[in-house]
Every structure is written in structure tokens, then in C-alpha cells.
């Protein structure tokens, strides 16, 4: 049988004119590292589930992407992470929502899939389950990055006057992508 792997690191207002060559190379290198981590498992006969987890963990541990270490901030200046995983052979699925101390939420989602009879766990309950299954927890400070903090400050500053933003301000990707959830 064939093996194959495909990954994404998020979609949005990503324009070449806004990217330095150095930053672009950094993104490309991390995407390749993620791909290779997963593909190596597949090449050695490992399961698609292990490959997906390996690829995603690389991106969760990078501050470049909005997941794990690079997560954006909520209105209250916290980080709340979500993840899910599903396997075709038995249609088993696991998901976690709103966790704040789980270093790699994809690993916890997979524990929900394999170690519980449930599909989704949320917030404190999910973290309690993580403790019981030895999934690595970290202090909230782990998720802090200056770039994401500044993004939140910019959005907080612009939110009350959203209707009065100039056209240029409204097109700013930080504002456009905030979606005021």
C-alpha cells in the first residue's frame, strides 16, 4: 500500500509582501521538519495515528503557529487550546477543548480517543484526565510569546472603535483575523 502525509500550519492573510525571506525560510524549515517527523514513522511501518501526532507535535512546539507554544491569547489574556484526532479503521475519535496547561493537546486528544469511552472533554475535566494519564502539563507561562501578546493588545485597542476604523486599519490582518469571538 501507498503511504502519504499532508500537513497545514493555518490559513489566512499570508502575503509574500509581508514576509521577509528569513521568516519565510523559517516557516518552510519547520513545515519540512514536521513532515519528515511524520513520514519517517510511516516509512518504518508505523501507524497513521502515530505519524499525525508526531507531525502535529513539531508544530505545537513551535512559536510560529497558532497551536501549543504559539497560541493566541483570549480576551482575558489567557491561552485556551483545542485539538482533535480521528482514525479511519474504527472511526474512533478524541477531542479536547479549552485546555490551558496541556503542552501538546493533540496527545491528550488521542488519549481521549484510546483511553476513554468519550469523544470530547473540556477545560478542567480534560486536564484532570490528562493528569490521570500522564500527559505533560505546563505552567501557563509556557504559552506566552511576545508576538501573540502584542496582537491581542492591538486588537483590544481597536475593538471598541471597530466601526470607525479606517480602511487601512480594517484591512490589518491582526484586526481582520481577530473575529471578535
Amino acid at each position, binding site marked *: 500500500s501507498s503511504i*502519504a502525509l499532508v500537513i497545514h500550519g*493555518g490559513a489566512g492573510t*499570508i502575503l509574500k509582501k509581508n514576509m521577509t525571506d528569513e521568516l519565510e525560510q523559517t516557516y518552510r524549515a519547520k513545515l519540512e521538519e514536521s513532515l519528515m517527523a511524520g513520514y519517517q514513522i510511516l516509512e518504518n*511501518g508505523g501507524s497513521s495515528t502515530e505519524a499525525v501526532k508526531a507531525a502535529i507535535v513539531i508544530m505545537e512546539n513551535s512559536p510560529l503557529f497558532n*497551536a501549543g507554544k504559539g497560541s493566541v491569547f*483570549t480576551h482575558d489574556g489567557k491561552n485556551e487550546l483545542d485539538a482533535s484526532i480521528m482514525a*479511519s479503521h474504527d472511526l474512533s475519535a478524541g477531542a479536547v477543548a479549552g485546555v490551558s496547561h496541556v503542552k501538546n493537546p493533540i496527545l491528550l486528544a488521542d488519549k481521549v480517543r484510546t483511553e476513554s469511552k468519550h469523544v470530547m472533554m473540556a477545560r478542567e475535566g480534560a486536564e484532570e484526565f490528562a493528569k490521570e494519564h500522564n500527559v505533560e502539563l505546563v505552567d501557563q507561562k509556557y504559552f506566552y510569546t511576545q508576538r501573540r501578546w502584542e496582537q491581542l493588545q492591538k486588537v483590544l485597542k481597536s475593538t471598541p472603535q471597530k466601526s470607525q476604523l479606517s480602511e487601512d486599519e480594517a484591512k490589518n490582518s491582526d484586526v481582520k483575523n481577530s473575529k471578535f469571538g
Partner: protein
Amino acid sequence: TVGAVALDVNGNITAGTSTGGMTNKRYGRIGDSPVIGAGTYATPLCGVSATGHGEYFIRAAVTHDICALVEYTDSNIQQAADTVIHEKLVKLGGDGGVIGLDKEGNIMMSFNTEGMYRGSIDKDGKVTIKIYK
């Protein structure tokens, strides 16, 4: 948001998605990433992971819809994804994208935004990494 879909030597497909959510979110809002059928889905024929404006991906049940099109129509996975991302989702007003694989290892990528960080290794071992449209 990040995601991955893999096909292993036994023909099993797995899809996974992980996210930090959206900047400035309130009220314990949850998007599509942890919602099976919206942000992540896998069947023996098809696996999909999504990234985008979650409310719309939930309402359109995007990843399930793509796999359903593959299962119940003559659409291949790329056609199915393009139908959902460029037609159904656009009509709703949702932006974002998806990646996926079918049981033969055919790679799918589809997005209606300016860019999507993405990469793949196909069944012939060819590596592709792209960022822009």
C-alpha cells in the same frame, strides 16, 4: 491552527487538528478544531483537517461534508474539497482551508484565503511545501 492527515502502510487514514483558537475570544468560545465532522474527520475513504473561521466550519460540517461527497458521489477528494471550500463555505461567508488524503494516497489542499502554510509527501515520496496561493 495546525493539522495533519496520514495514510499508513495498512491503508489506515488518520486526521488530526490542533489550535490556540482565536485572538480576543470570550465566553469560553470553541471553534471547529475539536469538533469531529467540522474541523477533523476520517473514514476508510478520506481524511480531512481544517483551518479557518470556526463558526462557519461548524455550520457547514466541512470535513464531514467533504468525506460524504467522496463516499456518496463521483467526486474525487480535491473536487469535493473545492466544492465545499469555494462554493458552500464562500456562500456562508466563511474563510479558511483544508488538507486531506484519500485511500489511494491522493493529496488534497483547498483554501479560499490569500495563503495557507502547507506541505505534503505523496505516494511517490515527492515533497512539496507551499505558503501562498
